[in-house]
């Protein structure tokens, strides 16, 4: 099977390589199509969507990950309101990298219930990469990447923004203030500094049902409120940037980000839910136990040097992620007398250093090279245990070569080699008998060390055909280093009651991916068909075992395995703007996964989804602009599920949105957005929500208002 697949891929590679000689060398175009909400870019090693910043402000969905879900191929893995992470073509977590100013975000992302630590307002430019972006971003970008850049330089000496948001469901309220100032220095040096502060709070989450069923019992939800699910977010971003017209150092940018979130956890998520616990304490905005506090800080430095005719880039980043889970001690045998409520404390320190150089070669070929180093150190504490402490190092080299000649046919080739090692600390948990320590301990993690090497390679081409046809194809081998949980988790993840077990024998995940886009552009619209096929010879996933946990409150053991897996799918997107004031687009996205040994699907795979957007806008004079937008989403039943995973029925949801903005001179404006989500008050389940196993429906009809003053 594996040999057949590799042979076929190899054959296809040869076919593509041979084909270049027959290409007429005509003047080509940039392979880019501008849609209403985003710009498709089929560039070099991947196809991507550069998201229009206006979309982010007009379609806000509570969390950045949720905001992006109306883009084709993007969904979110969520836990209620405050916790969500992006899903690209069904990949998430360890397989979707978030790149901030060239540095990969590192937190406790190994848990599905651990959200992305990000200020949704602090995004200048956002590019979503669909498909492997492993060459430059590493194995963690095997499924895709979110590439985030700063706010652009202001056109005037300064720019500011005051933003406020309110919502009726879970009473979300918050504000964000941004200011940046340009400084003119001597000798042509320009500089700017800026800062954004954001605060967001929500009350308990509400759903359009008055009961839920879990563990074979139905429990009431008073007024549809999930008790103890309030959230609070505080974010700070501060940056400074200098640009130098002469000398070796040409630019320098220093950024500090702080993301502090507190989330209450629905008691049904921790332990067995009871009538009293789900009824709550009556206060919808407080945090009681259990809850999660997450503090993520990072300091990023980006520099660019000029050496001869070429540029050298250097990025340095230090990140510290501190996650604390608090609950009343509830694991009999593991809790000493007078134990505090710290059930789990995880502190991860990460240092990264990237160095890269672009070379311009004869015949307009561009060579890009890079070196990357990363050090991680994780410490654990608390009454419970999930993952052990560890020290990890990775170093990689990559080189990509791109044919930049402006001809009809372009091609590119990339190679990456990475070496990494990890030292995992053992963990022995003392056993208590009636509050007293005994001599016995339970070994939860054995110490071990791993050292390995992997490589990735990609070859691709783009073709600008006649009559505005464009084709882009990338083929490659990818790899991914297993995460700490895949190697060494050994404990109970709340909510699932299942005991998750790592596997010290795991090898680096590897696979072969093919990705293609066919695009056709008309005067008033365009169409895009994307297809991808991936075969992984040792895909890592969590699979149920035929035995129970030996932990007192553990259920079935789910262990990490490596199996042959097929992952394929595609997206069809049509964008039509018959008039200046009218734009319509529709997308259809589908995924198919298959564990080849058993023929079963993989867990947490999005269903087939159809998304339909219509936008009408009116501009009156030089100042007034109105817009009305309708977004419809139809998800089909997801019946292709993994073992023990529930099937999820389909749903249909309508969102509507009214916008008004008044513009003064010099880019000053004020805008209001009134957004009604789930207008049809549909009671539906999200297959990717961690609330799904508890039969908890998604939010009903809710209204959100946003005001933004830009000056």
């Amino acid at each position, binding site marked *: 099977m594996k040999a057949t697949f590799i042979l076929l*891929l190899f054959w296809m590679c040869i076919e593509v390589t041979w084909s270049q000689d027959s290409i007429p060398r005509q003047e080509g175009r940039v392979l880019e199509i501008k849609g209403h909400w985003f710009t498709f870019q089929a560039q070099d090693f991947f196809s991507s969507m550069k998201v229009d910043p206006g979309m982010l402000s007009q379609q806000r969905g509570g969390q950045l990950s949720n905001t992006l879900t109306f883009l084709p191929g993007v969904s979110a893995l969520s836990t209620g309101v405050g916790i969500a992470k992006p899903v690209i073509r069904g990949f998430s977590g360890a397989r979707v990298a978030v790149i901030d100013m060239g540095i990969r975000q590192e937190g406790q992302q190994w848990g599905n219930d651990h959200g992305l630590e990000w200020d949704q307002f602090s995004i200048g430019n956002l590019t979503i990469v669909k498909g492997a972006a492993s060459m430059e971003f590493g194995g963690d970008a095997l499924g895709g990447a979110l590439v985030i850049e700063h706010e652009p330089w202001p056109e005037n000496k300064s720019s500011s923004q005051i933003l406020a948001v309110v919502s009726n469901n879970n009473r979300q309220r918050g504000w964000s203030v941004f200011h940046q100032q340009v400084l003119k220095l001597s000798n042509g040096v320009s500089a700017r500094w800026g800062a954004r502060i954001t605060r967001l709070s929500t009350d308990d989450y509400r759903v359009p049902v008055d009961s839920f069923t879990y563990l074979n019992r139905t429990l009431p939800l008073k007024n549809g409120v999930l008790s103890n699910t309030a959230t609070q977010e505080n974010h700070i971003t501060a940056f400074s940037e200098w640009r130098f017209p002469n000398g070796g150092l040409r630019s320098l940018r220093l950024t500090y980000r702080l993301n502090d979130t507190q989330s209450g956890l629905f008691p049904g998520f921790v332990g067995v839910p009871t009538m009293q*616990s789900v009824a709550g304490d009556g206060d919808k905005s407080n945090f009681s136990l259990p809850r999660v506090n997450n503090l993520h800080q990072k300091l990023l430095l980006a520099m660019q040097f000029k050496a001869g005719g070429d540029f050298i880039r250097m990025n340095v980043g230090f990140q510290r992620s501190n996650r604390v889970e608090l609950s009343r001690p*509830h694991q009999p045998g593991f809790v000493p007398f007078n134990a505090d409520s710290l059930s789990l404390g995880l502190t991860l320190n990460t240092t990264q250093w990237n160095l890269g150089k672009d070379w311009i070669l004869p015949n307009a070929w561009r060579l890009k090279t890079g070196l990357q180093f990363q050090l991680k150190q994780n410490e654990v504490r608390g009454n419970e245990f999930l993952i052990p402490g560890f020290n990890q190092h990775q170093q990689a080299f990559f080189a990509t070569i791109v044919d930049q000649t402006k001809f009809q046919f372009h091609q590119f080739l990339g190679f990456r080699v990475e070496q990494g090692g990890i030292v995992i600390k053992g963990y022995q948990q003392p056993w208590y008998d009636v509050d007293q320590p005994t001599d016995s301990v339970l070994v939860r993690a054995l110490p071990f060390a791993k050292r390995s090497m992997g490589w990735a390679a990609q070859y691709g081409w783009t073709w600008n055909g006649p009559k505005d046809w464009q084709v882009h194809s990338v083929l490659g081998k990818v790899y991914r280093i297993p995460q700490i949980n895949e190697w060494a988790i050994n404990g109970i993840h709340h909510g699932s009651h299942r005991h998750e077990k790592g596997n010290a024998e795991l090898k680096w995940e590897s696979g072969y991916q093919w990705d*293609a886009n066919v695009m056709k552009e008309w005067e008033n619209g365009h169409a895009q068909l994307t297809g991808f096929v991936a075969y992984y010879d040792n895909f890592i996933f969590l699979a*149920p075992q035929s*035995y129970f946990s030996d932990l007192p409150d553990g259920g079935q053991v789910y262990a990490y395995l490596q199996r042959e897996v097929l992952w394929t799918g595609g997206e069809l997107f049509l964008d039509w703007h018959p008039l200046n004031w009218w734009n319509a687009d529709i997308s259809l996205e589908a995924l198919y996964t298959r564990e080849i040994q058993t023929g079963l699907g993989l867990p947490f795979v999005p269903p087939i989804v159809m998304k339909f957007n219509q936008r009408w806008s009116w501009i009156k004079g030089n100042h007034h602009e109105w817009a009305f937008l309708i977004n419809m989403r139809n998800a089909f039943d997801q019946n292709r599920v993994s*073992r*023990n995973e529930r099937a999820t029925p389909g749903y249909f949801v309508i969102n509507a949105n009214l916008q008004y903005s008044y513009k003064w001179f010099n880019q000053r404006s004020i805008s209001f957005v009134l957004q009604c989500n789930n207008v049809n008050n549909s009671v539906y389940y999200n297959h990717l929500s961690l609330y799904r196993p508890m039969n908890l429906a998604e939010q009903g009809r809710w209204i959100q208002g946003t005001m933004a003053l830009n000056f």
Partner: protein
Amino acid sequence: MKVNMKMQWVVMGMMVLTIFSCKPEEVQDVERPVINSVMVNSVQQETHELTAGNSFVVQVGLTDNEDLSQLKINVHSADDGHGHVDLPGYEGLENVGLWSYSRVFDLSGTASSPTSTIAIPDTITGIWHLEIMAIDKAGNESDEKVYNLVVLP
């Protein structure tokens, strides 16, 4: 060029057909085992009133379409992580003392009815949960059953 591109699509189609035409190596059992009955002292109901210091007998009846693997009986405090519990008729009953019980039975065949006798410490009172779970050889998990055990002095 066109010929080569067409050839690629043909190859791609062949790849997809190759993969989709592969039959799984195992015929999959995806049917969950079923817990048909859980009796405490020969009584089947949601809440059981028990006395500290006594023993009680749990008998579980379960079936599977192919081959059962394990049954787990677990008792743990209902006071786990989210405040004390009130049940109608037992308002204000605080959990006193520590008690937990866990036992795993290895099973085989398509039907089984294991029995366990569980001793209650004489130092405890309050509300505990009795959880019953089963798995078959393929890893299919039954729907979990949870019952209240009210332990009185």
